[in-house]
C-alpha cells in the first residue's frame, strides 16, 4: 500500500543508519524515549534498535493504555460486569489484564456476559440489538481513541439509546510526560513523539518539553524508516544545539491537530481532578470523565462502582519498565513467571507493552553491536 511500503525500504533504512552513526558523538550515551506503545512494537517488530549504535539507547515510555491501567480499575470493571443484566464490552487486550481478583476473562468464565469489541460503535450496536439489557463499554486509550468513544456517545444521545453507558478510563499524554521529566531517576536526551495522538492534538501540546525541560521532540510515524529518521532528527538537534518540536510525520499530522476531533472531545469529556497510573501513581488532570451533558451515559454514575485501590504485585516491576528505569529483561519475573500466556504485569499483556514486545520478537539480547 502506498505510504506504507516506501517507509519499509531497506536501502533507505541503511542510509539513515549510516547518517545516525555519523551524527553521534563518540563517548556520549544518548537515551531517547519513544512515548508510544505503537512505536515500541514497531521498533522490536522491525529490529530498528539493531540498526542503532550501541550508545543510542531507546527507552520505552508509558504510551500503552492497557499497560498503565491500575489493577483497581480492572476490579471496578469486573464488578460492573457482574451487575445483573449487564453486557460488559471492551477491547480484546483488556480481557486479559489481571486485577486483584482475576481478569475479565475469568469473570466471563464465572458467568458474567463479557464481550470483546473492536470499536465503541460495536458496543453501541450490541446495545441497540439488546434493548432489554444494559450495555457498558469499558473505554481506554489516549487522545487517539477518545474521539471514537466521544462520537459513539454522541450517537447514543442523538439516537436515544438509553441502555448504553461508558466506564471512562481515557487518559491524556502530556501529564505523564511531565511526571516523567520531573522524575529524578530518569535522564532522557529526547523524545520520539506519538504520531497518532499528535494527529488529534497537534504538535503544540508538546512544546513545553523543549521550552521547560530543554529536550527535543520529533513527532514520528510508525514504519521503520519513520523511526530511524526521527532518531536521526533528534540526534541532529542535539548536535546542532537546537531544541524544538519537529514533525517527521507531516504527511499525516497537521501541526494544529484535528479541530473537529478536539471539539467533540471538549463537548463529551472533562478532565478528572486526578487519576491513578500504573507505576506512576496519581497524576493530576491526566484522565477524562464524561461531561455533565453526558452524565446519563456515565456507568460510574449509573452504577455503584467500588473504587478499588490495589497495590501492584510485589514481584512485578511494570512501574520501573513504564518509566524506562529498567529494561523488560531486568524484571525479576520477565519470561519466567510472567509471560504473555500468564501475565503478572500489564506490560506483558498488550502486544504494545514493552515486555510483550521484547518477548514476542525474541529480543533477549543484552548486548548490542555497533552497526
Amino acid at each position, binding site marked *: 500500500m502506498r505510504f506504507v511500503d516506501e517507509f519499509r525500504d531497506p536501502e533507505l533504512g541503511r542510509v539513515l543508519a549510516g547518517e545516525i552513526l555519523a551524527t553521534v558523538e563518540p563517548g556520549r550515551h544518548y537515551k531517547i524515549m519513544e512515548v*508510544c506503545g505503537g512505536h515500541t512494537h514497531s521498533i522490536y517488530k522491525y529490529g530498528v534498535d539493531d540498526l542503532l549504535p550501541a550508545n543510542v539507547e531507546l527507552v520505552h515510555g508509558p504510551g*500503552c493504555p492497557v499497560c498503565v491501567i491500575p489493577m483497581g480499575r480492572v476490579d471496578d470493571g469486573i464488578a460492573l460486569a457482574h451487575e445483573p443484566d449487564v453486557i460488559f464490552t471492551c477491547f480484546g487486550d483488556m480481557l486479559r489484564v489481571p486485577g486483584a481478583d482475576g481478569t475479565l476473562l475469568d469473570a466471563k468464565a464465572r458467568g458474567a456476559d463479557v464481550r470483546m469489541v473492536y470499536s465503541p460503535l*460495536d458496543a453501541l450496536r450490541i446495545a441497540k440489538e439488546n434493548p432489554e439489557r444494559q450495555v457498558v463499554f469499558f473505554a481506554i486509550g489516549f487522545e*487517539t481513541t477518545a*474521539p471514537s468513544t466521544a*462520537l459513539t456517545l454522541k450517537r447514543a444521545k442523538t439516537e436515544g439509546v438509553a441502555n448504553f453507558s461508558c466506564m471512562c478510563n481515557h487518559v491524556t499524554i502530556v501529564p505523564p510526560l511531565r511526571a516523567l521529566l520531573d522524575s529524578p531517576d530518569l535522564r532522557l536526551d529526547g523524545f520520539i513523539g506519538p504520531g497518532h495522538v499528535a494527529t488529534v492534538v497537534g504538535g503544540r501540546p508538546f512544546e513545553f518539553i523543549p521550552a521547560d525541560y530543554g529536550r527535543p521532540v520529533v513527532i514520528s510515524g510508525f514504519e521503520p524508516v519513520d523511526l530511524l529518521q526521527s532518531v536521526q532528527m533528534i540526534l541532529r538537534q542535539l548536535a546542532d544545539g537546537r531544541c524544538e518540536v519537529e514533525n517527521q510525520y507531516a504527511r499525516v499530522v497537521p501541526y494544529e491537530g484535528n479541530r473537529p476531533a478536539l471539539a467533540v472531545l471538549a463537548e463529551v469529556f472533562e478532565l478528572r481532578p486526578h487519576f491513578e497510573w500504573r507505576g506512576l501513581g496519581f497524576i493530576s488532570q491526566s484522565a477524562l470523565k464524561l461531561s455533565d451533558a453526558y452524565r446519563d451515559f456515565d456507568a460510574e454514575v449509573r452504577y455503584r462502582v467500588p473504587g478499588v485501590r490495589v497495590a501492584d504485585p510485589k514481584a512485578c516491576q511494570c512501574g520501573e519498565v513504564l518509566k524506562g528505569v529498567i529494561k523488560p529483561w531486568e524484571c525479576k519475573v520477565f519470561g519466567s513467571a510472567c509471560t504473555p500466556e500468564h501475565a503478572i504485569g500489564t506490560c506483558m499483556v498488550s502486544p504494545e507493552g514493552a515486555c510483550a514486545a521484547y518477548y514476542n520478537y525474541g529480543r533477549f539480547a543484552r548486548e548490542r553491536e555497533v552497526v
Partner: protein
Amino acid sequence: MSATPVTTSHVAAACVEDHCVTCSDEARPMRVASLGQAGLATCLDERGVSSEVMVDLVGGIVEGDVLLVHAGVAIAFASRAERAR
C-alpha cells in the same frame, strides 16, 4: 532462555496483524470503498477486510481515499484519491 520468537495465537486473534486496536497511538490505513449514511463509510484494510467506519472527523471524503482509522473512527487522511475535475 530461548531466543526463538514465541507465537501468541490469542494475541493474533485479538488484533489486526498482531497489532492491537487499543494501542495508545497507532491507527491503520483503510481505503474508502463506499460512502454510507449518517457519517459512516465502508472501508477496506490492507488485507481487503471491510468494516464500517465513522468519518465525522474527516470532511469531504470520496471513494478511494485512504484514511487513518483508529477504533472505528477515521482521524486523518493518509492519502486522497484523485478528485473529479
